[in-house]
């Protein structure tokens, strides 16, 4: 049975993409039915796919190849974040000082607390370098981790986890910290939890989404430039 199944899978080039969308769809339905924020479609969907792969004994690399069509869209989708940003250009220009100050503060807190955490927990430099770029988009973060001698694949996992935490906690953080300003919300979410957080920011509003998209790019570049400096203290 399992053999037949894996033969069928190896002859299909679309099952990974179909499984991805089906699992995400189920996650969406579950979130709608339950109304619970932690029923995040990405989280539920990923757990479902993991369960299916484990039950059928399918190795992850096979799934990854078959789901390639989905991952392929990641670059054009990230580039398209420029569109909401362009539509909010005036807002961006008028608030450039506040936006840059906010992103710089977030990046400094992120890199600083990762250095502190590494020291307190006695991590070796490779482990520290893996965690250092955890708040920026996977594309930048994995590159940074590798350049500094960390483990890029684990960095990618922590980055995704960070994004999910950010998108789940965003309404709560903004509420308890009394961050009511839509620009400040977007900058906070994008700086801390990159594109996964940004999808939450887009749900909160147009301005939140555009600012969060901007923060991905600026925080990513700033982290790429500053991480080597902070890595010296690991």
């Amino acid at each position, binding site marked *: 049975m399992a053999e037949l199944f894996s033969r069928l899978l190896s002859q299909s080039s679309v099952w*990974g993409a179909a499984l*991805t969308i089906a*699992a995400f769809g189920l996650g969406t339905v579950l979130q709608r039915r339950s109304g619970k924020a932690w029923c995040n*479609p990405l989280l539920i*969907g*990923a757990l479902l796919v*993991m369960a299916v*792969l*484990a039950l059928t004994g399918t190795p992850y690399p096979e*799934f*990854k190849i078959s789901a390639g069509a989905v*991952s392929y*869209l*990641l*670059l*054009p*989708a*990230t*580039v*398209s974040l*420029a*569109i909401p*940003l*362009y539509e909010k*250009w005036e807002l961006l220009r*008028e*608030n450039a*000082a*506040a*936006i840059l*100050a906010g992103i710089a*503060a*977030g990046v400094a807190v992120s890199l600083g*607390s990762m250095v502190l*955490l590494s020291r307190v927990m006695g991590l070796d430099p490779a*482990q520290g370098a*893996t965690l250092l770029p955890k*708040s920026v*988009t996977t*594309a930048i973060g994995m590159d940074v981790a590798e350049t500094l001698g960390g*483990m890029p694949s684990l960095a990618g996992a*922590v980055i*995704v*986890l*960070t*994004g999910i935490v*950010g998108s789940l906690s965003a309404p709560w953080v903004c509420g308890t910290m009394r*961050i009511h300003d839509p*620009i*400040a*919300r977007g*900058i*906070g979410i994008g700086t*801390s939890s990159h*594109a996964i*957080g940004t999808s939450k920011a887009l749900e909160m509003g147009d301005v939140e*989404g555009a600012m969060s*998209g901007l923060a991905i790019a600026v925080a990513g*570049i700033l982290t*790429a430039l500053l991480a080597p400096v902070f890595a010296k203290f690991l």
Partner: protein
Amino acid sequence: MKWVFQSGRILGVCFLAEILAELLPLPVPASVYGLALMLAALKSGLLRLDQVKDTGRFLVSILPVLFLPATVGIMDLRSELSAMLLPCLIAAGPVTVLVMAAAGLVTQWVRRRGGGNHG
């Protein structure tokens, strides 16, 4: 056909971005170059908004699904993850909240001090 041509323009920008990422010696990935290039193309009038808007908005709206395959990759990293589970959880949990609060509060504070309009 509108969707095809809009996709073509977006992919063209992506391709230029990939070339830049390859040629320039900075640790900046293609996605960031692409975002900047797309913004520059729109600002300069090289591309009009309606030439990329529909496909671009569609792509932005499906962003969360696109991360799913990479997220599943965590299942192959069990040993690395278990070796430093606690630091990873602290990094992804409390630190993320801290960073969000810092960036958000500083932005809000500077804006309230008069660094911009309040709209």
